[in-house]
């Protein structure tokens, strides 16, 4: 089972998201994964994430959102990270905008790994010191180091 730090590749880290709202943020993060050539069907991928998001918000509070879905459009679990200075409204239960957004997608048949990855990431992001570090990081290397240090 791969670690979060092994799933998160530097090209999939956006230190300054341009998006101002949720769907655009998901589109921006999806685009970096699609550009890597690891998504076999871009529309299916994006729609799967959006379908999950439309059912219920993936904003988990404390400035964090984890849009996620299982989809036929990929062969392995993939992960992208985006940071928004202004914050994006993910309709979190605590009412706060999300500044740290991790997008996770898994193949439909990899449910267990998907659940474990979500659980591990949620646990890491629940720590305030980690969120502070991620918000203050200046480079994608620093982002990766912060995640690596937590595993």
């Amino acid at each position, binding site marked *: 089972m791969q670690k979060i730090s092994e799933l998160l590749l530097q090209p999939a880290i956006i230190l300054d998201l341009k998006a101002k709202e949720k769907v655009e943020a998901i589109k921006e993060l999806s685009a970096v994964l699609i550009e890597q050539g690891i998504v076999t069907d871009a529309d299916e991928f994006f729609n799967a994430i959006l379908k999950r998001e439309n059912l219920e*918000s993936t904003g988990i509070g404390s400035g964090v959102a984890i849009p996620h879905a299982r989809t036929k459009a990929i062969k392995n679990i993939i992960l992208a990270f985006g940071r928004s200075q202004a914050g994006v409204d993910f309709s979190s239960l605590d009412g706060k905008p999300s500044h740290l957004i991790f997008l996770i997608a898994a193949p439909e048949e990899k449910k267990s790994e998907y*659940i474990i990855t979500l659980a591990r990431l949620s*646990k890491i992001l629940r720590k305030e010191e980690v969120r502070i570090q991620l918000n203050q990081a200046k480079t994608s290397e620093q982002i990766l180091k912060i995640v690596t240090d937590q595993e």
Partner: protein
Amino acid sequence: MLEKILLYAENRESAKALAAWTLKLAKILNARIFAVFIINDSALTPQPAKTKIKRHRADSSREEAAWATLYEIEDDAFEENVKISLILEEGTPETKLIEVLQSFELNGIVVSGQSNLDFNELIRRTHDKVLIIK
């Protein structure tokens, strides 16, 4: 009318069956579920300093297991097209359940009859907004 249901999520078989039942109920009622997992810190006994690292690892595993339980319920809810929010809390279960119930103005709490909860206290403090499923 049950529009917003608090589901008490736990790592036990009876709780999994309860989650499945609650999802079916929510689907029929077009209700939204708030799945709440409470890491019970009152169940921990103080540990001597030499086991701090072990305790940290145990706590970390418990939290990860808690999130995994919540995300499993969420995945099932998605399959059933049921709206669901996930909440992880730490503390005394009865107190935290009531806090969540009140904060989000939920209509009731669904719990397993095999939970180690003080049902009488829960019923009293929620004014009977508890559904205990055996």
